[in-house]
């Protein structure tokens, strides 16, 4: 008898949580969509996470030069592309590779196939105190693997993050992929891979040059640029999406001006039409 009472109570608890869940799903007033219409309305810009620091810098310069605001959303290129396809109100998307932009152009979510804005580079990175010696030939990594000193090595998830794909290609080119694989930790995007490589006990990782060049990353470890012959080029492309307004168009153009390019160059990006 009292067994029933107890069970009823427990179920009430369950039901209360279920109700809470259901209530939270109710549309309590629509959030304001980013307006593409207003001429000076801020632009909502989605960007691959290798741009985490560089694009903040570009947006600050853009604001200073034009008085216009670009609001930035960072994530993995795959995730942002998917969100854009599902109707996220992004006005401009800067992907870390071309494929996602072509995909958006085909589905009609992007206005066109957009423009290349940078070529990305990857580095071998080791946090302070790591036994891993960093060099462009990955000899230090090979030696550390031989010595059994690598237990955790961070890269972005190659399945959907372009920088993760490049890291895999580089490790394969060096003949180290099979040996590193058991030790891999996969970041959801390249920022998280960087965070894994710096803070959480990994001996190192392969991350974006644009992240280690950022002032925020100074003193967090040592790094060495990997030759671009080790992986397919990271051709980073951007395109205006359907909801784009005047500010987004200005920002898209600004990325291609000398001022915008100068900032990107500082973070180690190779710019279209320029050699190393």
């Amino acid at each position, binding site marked *: *008898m*009292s*067994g*029933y*009472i*107890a*069970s009823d*109570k*427990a*179920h009430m*608890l*369950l039901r209360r*949580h279920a109700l809470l869940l259901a209530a939270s799903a109710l549309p309590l007033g629509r959030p304001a969509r980013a307006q593409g219409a207003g001429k000076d309305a801020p632009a909502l810009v989605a960007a691959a996470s290798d741009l985490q620091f560089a694009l903040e810098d570009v947006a600050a310069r853009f604001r200073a030069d034009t008085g216009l605001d670009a609001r930035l959303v960072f994530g*993995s290129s*795959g*995730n942002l592309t*998917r969100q854009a396809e599902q109707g996220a109100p992004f006005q401009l998307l800067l992907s870390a590779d071309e494929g996602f932009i072509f995909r958006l152009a085909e589905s009609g979510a992007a206005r066109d196939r957009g423009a290349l804005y940078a070529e990305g580079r990857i580095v071998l990175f080791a946090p302070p*105190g790591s036994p891993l010696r960093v060099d462009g030939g990955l000899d230090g990594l090979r030696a550390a693997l031989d010595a059994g000193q690598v*237990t*955790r090595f*961070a890269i972005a*998830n190659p*399945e*959907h993050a372009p920088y993760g794909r490049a890291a895999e290609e580089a490790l394969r080119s060096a003949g180290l992929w099979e040996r590193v694989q058991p030790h*891999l*930790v*996969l*970041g*959801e995007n390249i920022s998280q891979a960087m965070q*894994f490589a710096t*803070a*959480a*006990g*990994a001996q190192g990782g392969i991350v974006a040059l644009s992240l280690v060049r950022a002032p925020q990353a100074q003193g967090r470890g040592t790094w060495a640029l990997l030759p671009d012959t080790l992986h397919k080029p990271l051709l980073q492309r951007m395109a205006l999406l359907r909801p784009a307004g005047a500010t987004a168009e200005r920002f898209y153009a600004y990325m291609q001006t000398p001022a915008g390019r100068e900032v990107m160059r500082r973070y180690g990006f190779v710019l279209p039409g320029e050699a190393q």
Partner: protein
Amino acid sequence: MVDWTALHLSLVLGAATLLLLLPPAAWLGRVLAYRRFPGRELAEVLVALPLVLPPTVFGYGLLLLFGTGSPFGQAAIVVLGHPLAFSFEGLLIASVLVNVPFAVQPIQNAFAAVPRNVREAASVSGMAPGQALLRVELPLAWPGIAVAAALTFAHTLGEFGVVLMVGGSIPGQTRTAAIALYDRVQAFDDRGAALMAAALLVVSLAALLLSNLLSRQVGRRTRDA
């Protein structure tokens, strides 16, 4: 394709969480139900905290705790030979902590619902406290324990934010079914994502259904007795 490794890992994580969490949760639930002591209110609030605390707060806290900068993280490296972050053990610790309210609250309610006169009758008729616990209290509180087990198990399968922050998506170690589903979605593998989602849905439903059945059957038996 269904990521069976990930699904298997989630089931193992759920079972291990149950094994570790349920005994202390049963003890704590009973203490909270019967004892009056200073700090009891605080204990109840702490138990309920993971219900409202964002998983990212948990994830961040665990990153700091597991990191090489913390004494705990250092000790774990000495004991395990590897850091707790990115490891199954780390996920297990996270899972146990996050599930405390789901395990303790139903059990506490169940013990609280055992009528005082029944417990007094047990003691008056000469039952030792241990005997009374085994033969009177536990059979009566059993449905609450079954619900606690089902909620804990189902919630472990669904845990996402914490795992995303401290896991590192390692196949067979930290890539749980919920993370694998997320990876499938990002990789534009809609079929894989749908299959993973369906598998998780079925397992969660089965866990809840099983606990309902168990608690009802035991309820019936204790009533007939």
